[in-house]
């Protein structure tokens, strides 16, 4: 465990170094959130009764999504991992007395957390001070906030576990491009990154909520703004735990299988 913690610490401090990149990213995300809110506002003004959640819940959802983008962004896979599989550097890592799965998991986790740590506070701070329906409102209750923090962590773990599955598959196919594009587009849509899940038609939404993608950002962001009932929350958290167990065990099995089969590329 200690060696994986060391990997985590190393990556985390490394990630904190890129401050200019963080500022640039933040401005982009702020503009993105702002424009997104304008779109929902236009829809809300045309037809307020068709809105599946309150307007202020929607804006909170959007700001939280922008603030914690680095935690859940499906595009943010580790190119280093793909590269090491392609150019053969993976051989060095296989020599070490560590589990590849655990090492990559802690590394991805650290990368995402360090990025989010640099970016989330300023965005949240600005969003808090925006005038009422446009900013981020306070959580509905203390319990909601605690549940939000818990599901945020669970969602992050599910996201990383899912990415690990794709890294594992790369071992078997060598060319990661196709897989990567297919999966990231799927994650984007089904996780609620394109539009929040409640905006989908009810039948589609019912199916989407069972899938692992809904266990990523969807749960936490919706719990915060109080647009989930108590039973819905219970079910969502349970699904998050179940998917986390399935994805991590599936991923580590895949990694172990791939490690035995692996042909080291390059020279």
């Amino acid at each position, binding site marked *: 465990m200690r060696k994986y913690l060391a990997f985590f610490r190393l990556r985390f401090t490394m990630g904190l170094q890129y401050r200019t*990149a963080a500022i*640039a*990213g933040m*401005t*982009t995300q702020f*503009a*993105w959130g702002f*424009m997104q809110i*304008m*779109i929902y506002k*236009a*829809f809300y*003004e*045309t*037809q307020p009764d*068709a809105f*599946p959640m309150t307007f202020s819940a929607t804006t909170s959802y959007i700001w939280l999504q922008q603030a914690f983008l680095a935690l859940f962004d499906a595009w943010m896979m580790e190119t280093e991992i793909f590269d090491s599989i392609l150019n053969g550097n993976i051989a060095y890592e296989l020599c070490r007395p560590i589990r590849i799965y655990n090492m990559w998991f802690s590394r991805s986790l650290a990368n995402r957390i360090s990025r989010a740590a640099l970016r989330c506070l300023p965005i949240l701070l600005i969003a808090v001070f925006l005038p009422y329906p446009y900013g981020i409102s306070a959580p509905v209750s203390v319990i909601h906030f605690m549940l939000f923090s818990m599901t945020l962590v669970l969602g992050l773990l599910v996201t990383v576990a899912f990415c690990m599955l794709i890294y594992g598959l790369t071992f078997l196919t060598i*060319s990661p*491009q*196709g897989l990567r*594009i*297919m999966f990231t*587009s799927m994650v*984007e*849509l089904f996780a609620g990154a*394109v*539009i929040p899940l409640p*905006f*989908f*038609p009810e039948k*589609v939404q019912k199916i989407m909520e069972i899938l692992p993608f809904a266990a990523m950002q969807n749960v936490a962001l919706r719990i915060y703004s109080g647009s989930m009932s108590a039973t819905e929350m219970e079910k969502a958290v349970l699904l998050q735990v179940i998917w986390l167990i399935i994805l991590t065990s599936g991923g580590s099995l895949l990694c172990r299988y791939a490690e035995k089969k692996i042909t080291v590329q390059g020279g």
Partner: protein
Amino acid sequence: MVIRMERLKHGLKLYCHYVSISIKSMMQYKTSFFLTALGQFLVSFNVFLGIHFMFLRFHTVNGFTYSEVLLCFSIVLLEFSVAEMIARGFDTFSQMVRTGSFDTILVRPRNEILQVLGSKFELTRIGRMLQATIVFLYAVLHCNVGWNFAKVMTVIFMIVGGTAVFSGLFTVYAAFCFFTLDGLEFMNVFTDGAREFGKYPIGIYGKKMLLFTTFVIPYALVQYYPLLYLTNRTDDVINILIPLCAVFFLIPCYAFWKFGVRHYKSSGS
């Protein structure tokens, strides 16, 4: 004058040669080419699905119907992908500055923009264009545009003007590299952001946004005003020609690029 025309002709021929080499080299990796094109398709397909599902719930937005929004979305996407196909060399320009390979361009007796653009012709954007074309055809069939010569010209002018605006923005993006050595991520707000949020008529973003996109970066000239004409919201024929005015946006962009070239200090080895 004759000499000028001669040079232009020669330049065009050279550019076509660059493009053909670029395509040939890309075709050496066919799988990679198709996968990237597919990726381009899927990314914008998500945007399309977003619009589609929103309109299953809402009937209109600010008076614009589903097919009118699709018309808008597909034209902007087409403008963007054509611009990206041509001006992709600017997108990866930061590498050229950092590695110092811009030096080799400067010593050649040809226009430097021609060479930068020729360095990379991105045919993979065809995936995005394909999508834009399909959505456009769907929108055309379902929209009550009442097509006539003037409206067809409007669409053509929109595509020309829009390609100019996006190409101009790519030029500015590249010109910044002369000063910062690296691409500035916030410029994405103006390129990728415009593609993403140009899917809805700019009018829905409010008055201030409309003013900004009319006078500062002329997106509205190639999207909102001609769209009003296409969807019969106004009869004013000036709207047909407005998108062509956006081509003037290239002038300040070009000036900024020239300014940047003059300040270029070689880096790398």
